[in-house]
């Protein structure tokens, strides 16, 4: 970039200033959370919010994990199962369906695609209440499955998978696999998924974030706090801060702990979402 056409410094000052201001805006709240989580509760209110006092982070985490027999750890684990499990399985299902829509001609294909595409416009929160009513008909509310099963469905993933399959799996290759005697399903799992891998990671990340962010479904569905995902758990603690002030510190440390895994996952999977993200919009 620094080669022949470097624009004059005068032109670069304003853009860099905008970038710097935005960096402060986006990162300061997270910095504040990290600093706040490292303080003891007395120092949290009495010292400067954006700089460290005595470093208590390890002790605070210990307190959080010990609180009420490790309830928080359980919430984290639940979140991992709800979001990780649903996103993993949901991505496979969406990839299979999108792949079939892209690579095979069959009756009802257009209808299926259009119905799924309209599904993208139906927000997940609109489904939470009727799902609750249906699950209560079969006495299955307040169970792991009542949150997990609905979270598997991701119409947007099917839409993306169809675009990616069209773009990255050549028909000639499928034909070659057929001539070699490979069945359609084996070809999908051994050849096609490999070609679609960057796309699948993108679908997985989108799905993960969607489930992770879906708050209404567990809020309506669950009443047993041992089944809560971490978002719902921290939310309930936060509503009790006025009655139980010690919870404030736990909420802050808990918030830090619960966003850390996803931030790390984003950093590690950078090259995937960086390339895959645009494809859905370009077409």
């Amino acid at each position, binding site marked *: 970039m620094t080669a022949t056409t470097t624009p004059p410094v005068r032109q670069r000052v304003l853009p860099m200033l905008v970038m710097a201001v935005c960096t402060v805006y986006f990162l300061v709240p997270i910095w504040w959370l990290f600093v706040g989580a490292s303080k003891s509760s007395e120092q949290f209110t009495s010292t400067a919010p954006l700089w460290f006092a005595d470093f208590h982070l390890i002790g605070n985490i210990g307190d959080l994990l010990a609180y009420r027999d490790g309830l928080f750890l359980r919430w984290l684990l639940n979140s991992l199962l709800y979001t990780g499990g649903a996103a993993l399985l949901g991505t496979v299902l969406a990839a299979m369906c999108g792949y079939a829509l892209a690579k095979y001609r069959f009756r009802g294909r257009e209808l299926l695609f259009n119905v799924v595409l309209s599904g993208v416009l139906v927000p997940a929160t609109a*489904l939470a209440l009727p799902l609750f009513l249906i699950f209560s008909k079969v006495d299955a509310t307040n169970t792991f499955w009542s949150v997990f099963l609905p979270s598997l469905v991701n119409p947007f993933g099917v839409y993306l998978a169809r675009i990616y399959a069209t773009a990255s799996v050549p028909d000639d290759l499928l034909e070659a696999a057929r001539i070699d005697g490979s069945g359609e399903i084996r070809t999908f799992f051994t050849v096609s998924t490999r070609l679609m891998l960057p796309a699948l990671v993108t679908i997985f990340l989108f799905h993960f974030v969607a489930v992770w962010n879906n708050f209404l479904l567990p809020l309506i569905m669950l009443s047993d706090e041992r089944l809560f995902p971490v978002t719902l758990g921290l939310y309930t603690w936060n509503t009790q801060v006025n009655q139980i002030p010690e919870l404030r510190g736990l909420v802050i440390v808990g918030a830090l702990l619960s*966003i850390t895994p996803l931030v790390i996952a984003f950093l590690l999977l950078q090259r995937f979402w960086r390339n895959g993200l645009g494809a859905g919009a370009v077409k």
Partner: protein
Amino acid sequence: MTMTPTMTTVEEPATKAPRRGGAIRYGRAVPFFVVPFGLLFILFYLLPIGYAIVQSLYTVERTGTFGPAREVFGGLEQYRRVFADGPFWASIGRVLLFGVVQVPVMLGLALLLALLLDSGLVKGRRFFRLAFFVPYAVPGVIAAIMWGFLYSPNLSPLKPVTSAVDLLSADFVLWAMANVVTWVYVGYNMLIIYSSLLAIPAEVYEAARLDGAGPARIAWSIKIPLVLPAIVLTTVFSIIGTLQLLAEPQVFRSFSSAVSSTYTPNLTVYSTSSVPNFNLAAAFSVVLALTTFVLSFAFLKFTSRSAR
């Protein structure tokens, strides 16, 4: 469950009939690929929508004050209540106002940042791209809790601001929430727009550069028109998200008394269902989903027509 039998039947070598028509040859593979998703989609997407519609057509009748409740068909009775419900329509108006201001601000900022990243005027693009995207990893509930603390007068590093104006008062709380949503989603929208900027071949700019167009002129006349589909897509998602606003106001109820239990349409659905009045809540859900669908669909139609 259905996996094993389908698997064995399809695994017969396709070479047996290599020249036959596609539809017959892959006949069994297609259901294998489509049915698992299709089944879940029907069970957990279509069925709930249908069920909500059915539920919304019933009313609960009691004989006497404490008599047993029974559901009777009420026709459009619940919808009459929905349309007569002042707070619900006020909440729709509130989120529309929110969207009219917040969505353009958020997407404008996302577009500006994407164009700057793409302009070659900025160093350290990898860092900025990542820094702006990090808030997207923070779920709405937790973002709202964080900002709730940041807005609270006695804890905030923004003390000069929070001591002058109460950001959690009735006048400001809607915009305080708009800031939370903006903070979370700017980076995500920026990346979608930026990726489609990267997909534009460099030759497109050559002629404009030779004519002496500067970066701003190129951005305005060439780049923005070319990334319009990405902007449309992000707008549709933002419209949907705005109408569904729930986590932020629900969390802010702990920080601010200005947020009522019917502050947004989804809060109304939630508080009506915890009364419990499921039939009315179902009617609210249906009306909200329809409103969302119609608005986003209308926007898509409108933009695809004006693009032509």
